[in-house]
């Protein structure tokens, strides 16, 4: 009973119990199974490219994309773009995460805050983030500031919504137990409401981050920033550099995957999965 390790199923991977206990061999089989759809996609891509369904310039082979990727990486251009994008993402998303969790908790706990914020959030949330972009650029000028602000603004909505739902879903019996044991309001917040709502908060942060990515790459195309993956992809269009565009898309995918696996999955396994609040 004590050594019962919760089954953690990584996104897209089959449940572990299917391969646990069958050793290295089975592990390779899982890797092969995960890689299979990508290999099929790559093969189709290669066939389309080699048959020149589109002009070669517009639809490069994988080899050309890979060499552009290596060239741009070694020259430091791609890392520079990626770094600037990541800085904006981190700054904007950090603001969204902190503000979103605070507003969400207030909405969940206080009727007054709910009455004020809920209608505003409900109306603003479904509007596509990029629709605000021109306004933000007019108000705050070009460059980093409006980009970060827009990312923060847009990605806060899913965080707010999910935190609010999570706080509402905190079991009344936890609150009662804590109060019976002498928890005052600040302690109740920290020791019960926050951990109790954590599964929802993490979901909100995940969705918020996805939102942040979308709007950031978009706004980089508009905000005339000198560096950034969005700008790199957009700029490459002028010269029909599809290999550069695809390299940028690959980097975005890789960063997204790394954030999911190294940040969110770790965080989840350490908290809500370990606590049995999520499997």
């Amino acid at each position, binding site marked *: 009973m004590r050594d*019962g390790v919760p089954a953690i199923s990584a996104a897209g991977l089959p449940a572990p119990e299917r391969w646990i206990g069958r050793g290295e061999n089975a592990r390779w089989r899982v890797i092969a199974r995960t890689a299979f759809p990508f290999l099929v996609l790559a093969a189709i891509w290669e066939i389309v490219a080699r048959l020149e369904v589109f002009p070669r310039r517009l639809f490069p082979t994988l080899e050309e994309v890979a060499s552009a990727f290596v060239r741009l990486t070694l020259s430091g251009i791609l890392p520079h773009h990626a770094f600037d994008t990541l800085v904006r993402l981190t700054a904007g998303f950090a603001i969204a995460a902190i503000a979103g969790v605070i507003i969400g908790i207030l909405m969940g706990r206080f009727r007054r805050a709910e009455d004020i914020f809920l209608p505003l959030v409900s109306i603003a949330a479904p509007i596509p983030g990029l629709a605000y972009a021109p306004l933000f650029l007019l108000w705050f000028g070009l460059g980093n500031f409006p980009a970060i602000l827009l990312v923060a603004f847009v990605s806060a909505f899913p965080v707010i919504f999910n935190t609010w739902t999570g706080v509402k879903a905190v079991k009344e*019996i936890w609150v*009662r*137990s804590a*109060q019976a*044991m002498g928890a005052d309001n600040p302690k109740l917040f920290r*020791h019960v409401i926050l951990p109790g709502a954590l599964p929802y908060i993490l979901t909100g942060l995940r969705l918020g981050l996805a939102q942040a990515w979308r709007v950031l790459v978009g706004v980089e195309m508009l905000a005339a920033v000198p560096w950034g993956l969005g700008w790199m992809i957009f700029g490459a269009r002028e010269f029909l550099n599809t290999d550069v565009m695809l390299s940028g898309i690959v980097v975005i995918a890789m960063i997204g995957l790394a954030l999911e696996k190294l940040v969110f999955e770790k965080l989840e396994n350490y908290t809500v999965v370990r606590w*049995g609040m999520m499997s």
Partner: protein
Amino acid sequence: MSHIEIRDVSLVYDTPAGQVPGVQGVSLDMRESEFLCLLGPSGCGKSTLLNIVAGFLTPTSGEIRIGGKAVNGHGTDRGVVFQDFAQLFPWRTALGNVAFGLEMKGIPKEERDEIAFNQLKLVKLEKFVKSYPHHLSGGMQQRVAIARALAYNPSVLLMDEPFAALDAMTRDAMQRLLADVWRETRKTIIYVTHNVAEAVYLADRVIVMTPHPGKVKAEVVIDLPRPRDPLSVEFLDCQKQLLAHLGETHQVS
């Protein structure tokens, strides 16, 4: 002086259908270290009365005093154990759950961990201090909940059908354990149940309640030596007596 005084307590629920009396004119006195069972069918107001004593509900009229002090909201002079296994905090280990009340009091970590460990030992869970609740069985979770309610040393323990959701065998074991814990800690306990045998096994005194409105119907002192033998003639006599009180009021129509 009695430890707990319940003076003419009534509670009226406001519902869309009008005012529904939950508890009506209940008066009780409990001495220190007494084990009292509130027995009755569902809807008889026994849980409502317990929640009033716990301070989760405010009575419409009447007064409750514990140790001479009027009850006004919840307080750490009372520990509460609910029926629901989910009462434990899933994000804390067994030890962390038991230490919660002590942490709220501001007791240093080392000291509270030691107290919590001893409480877990009292309910025979010292091997599971580091386990999270979802790795524990229902019976174990309820034992953690009892240890948790005792850890910050309240003088009164309030229990709302804590073993009702357990299987019969586990329930028997838990009742024996609770009787031991009570003998060692000498807490004043109010225990809500609808199980007649459970009431006879545990209580010094059983209060039989009747529904619509929730009132005290009868009071039966269980004067059997402990540990009690559920198969003895005297035990069965007590059960019959309680069933007779319940039967008069609890006919299914």
